[in-house]
């Protein structure tokens, strides 16, 4: 018979070990970013002992972190390119503007869905939810031809539009759940005081939903930041986000693992920081507002 204290120690050890198993691939990827090609191809694989180098980061971001300013923007023999700073910029532009667009449109709509009653409302909510079910490939294929005809292929505008479409169901349902948390009596008493709907929304309800707004924006940003298929399909090289750019390190003569890991590691940092900021609302966000923590 094991005592309860003993059992609890065992439980803690198992928990730490299992979580370490989940974190290991991230740790491994970060070490690859700081390794030389020789160390990446060590046999047997070497996870602990290596001499950290920032060479991969220097090549990917075109800056020299140590001494000397060699030309690091070389083209790979296989036709790829090391220099990825513009790709990070593309990712930021697309994620920021698609988030602003999606959250703005969704906030307006979800206020009405939370505060007003109209015929077919439940159907409308279900319809919004069902756009979340559309497989990206079913949107990307017609969108490719549509964008080709109107000149939106390979443009910021096109990708911003598609990413905000992708984030709209999440943003609408999530913001609705945050508005639902705010008692309706607040609206009612403001109405009696003679405030218009717009004024109530703008001056009272919106400031009260600030935390929810931030959480929604962070999640929309992350989903745009990590999206792959739309960018792969609707860009033709002059604009590319980090996930798609990462796959270009795979060339006919081999894969530039160190550079790919450097880009991946650098792009994970903002996402990690953001997700830790919204821990409180994370479950609600992941379940589109249907579960509260």
């Amino acid at each position, binding site marked *: 018979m094991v005592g309860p204290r003993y059992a609890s120690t065992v*439980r803690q050890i198992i928990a730490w070990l299992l979580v370490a198993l*989940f974190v290991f*691939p991230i740790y491994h990827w970060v070490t690859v970013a700081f390794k030389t090609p020789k160390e990446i191809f060590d046999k047997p694989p070497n996870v602990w002992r290596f001499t950290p180098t920032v060479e991969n980061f220097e090549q990917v971001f075109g800056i020299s972190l140590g001494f000397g300013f060699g030309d690091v923007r070389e083209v790979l023999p296989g036709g790829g390119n090391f220099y990825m700073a513009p790709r990070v910029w593309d990712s930021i532009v697309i994620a920021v503007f698609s988030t602003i667009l999606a959250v703005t449109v969704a906030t307006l709509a979800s206020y009405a869905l939370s505060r*007003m009653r109209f015929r077919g409302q439940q159907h409308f909510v279900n319809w919004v939810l069902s756009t979340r079910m559309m497989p990206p490939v*079913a949107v990307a294929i*017609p969108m490719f031809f549509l964008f080709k005809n109107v000149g939106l292929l390979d443009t910021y505008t096109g990708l911003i539009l*598609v990413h905000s479409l992708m984030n709209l169901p999440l943003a609408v349902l999530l913001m609705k759940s945050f508005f639902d948390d705010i008692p309706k009596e607040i609206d009612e008493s403001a109405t009696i005081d003679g405030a218009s709907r717009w004024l109530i929304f703008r001056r009272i309800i919106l400031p009260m939903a600030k935390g929810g707004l931030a959480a929604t924006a962070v999640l929309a940003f992350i989903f745009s930041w990590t999206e792959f298929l739309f960018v*792969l399909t609707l860009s033709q090289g002059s604009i590319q986000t980090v996930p798609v750019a990462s796959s270009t390190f795979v060339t006919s003569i081999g894969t530039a693992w160190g550079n790919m890991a450097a880009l991946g590691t650098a792009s994970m940092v903002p996402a990690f920081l953001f997700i830790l900021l919204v821990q409180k609302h994370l*479950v609600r966000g992941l379940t589109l507002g249907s579960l509260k*923590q």
Partner: protein
Amino acid sequence: MAVANLTRRRSALFDHPLPWLLPLIAILALLAIFPLFYSIWLSFYEWSTFNRQLEFVGWRNWATLFDDDRLSASLIVTFSYFAIALSFELVLGMGLALLLDADHRGFGFLRGALTLTLVIPPAVAGMMFLLMEDAEFGVITYVLQTIGLIDRGTPILATPSLALAGVLLVEIWQWTPFMVLIFMAGLRSLPTEPFEAALIDGASWWMTFRRITLPMMGKVIAIAVLIRGIDLFRVFDYVFVMTSGGPGTRTFSLSLYAWQQTFSFVKWGYGATLSLVTLAIVLVIANLFIWLTKVRW
């Protein structure tokens, strides 16, 4: 008087839901409904490489569906992927959630660490595992060889019997934490009385879990299954960067097939038809599931 009227009319405008919903309806109509109809239209045409134009082919693309070995192969891959990944993520997720649902020191940190996998771009996660599953330099390959599960120099992702498992590994790694977070929130929200009663009655741990925890977690589990299931069914990123559907058709998902037909083989009409099939399957299964489990938004 006129000014007052004007203000009232302006405020009356916002009393109606339509102005609030209009931007949303406009974007969804432009970017979700129009492409849908365009796909349907496209499925009755095919690009002719000889004449260099779209030609009307009637129901041909739809008829091809019923006589397409690659489609049946991709359906089998997609459904297996869906079922295996979902089972593992549910069971592992529930196990980890029960394990971490305690107030020990550092458990908050562990929960935070688990969320990290969720924000890694799936394409990048695929690359991470591509390196770790490399036949010569991969850590996972090395560990599996050392414990004798696979032979020396076995390329996991190029071996027909192992390729799907190799892709499922990254899938399960990245999304089990999704289940853990949702289940932990669910466990936290359960009332304590039934558990106290079970303790007094001397019910075993397994009995308590089977008869109290699981039934009370029904809604939470249903929502987790729905949201993860929708994404599982349209898997693309992992197979695209890790295997391109190979070896043979062992990891050839439905989304990948539709994409490849359109953009690699210039079969625009058939690609659109396949994407509509994917859409139809997801919509039917998801709505059936919502109807059966009575999940509400």
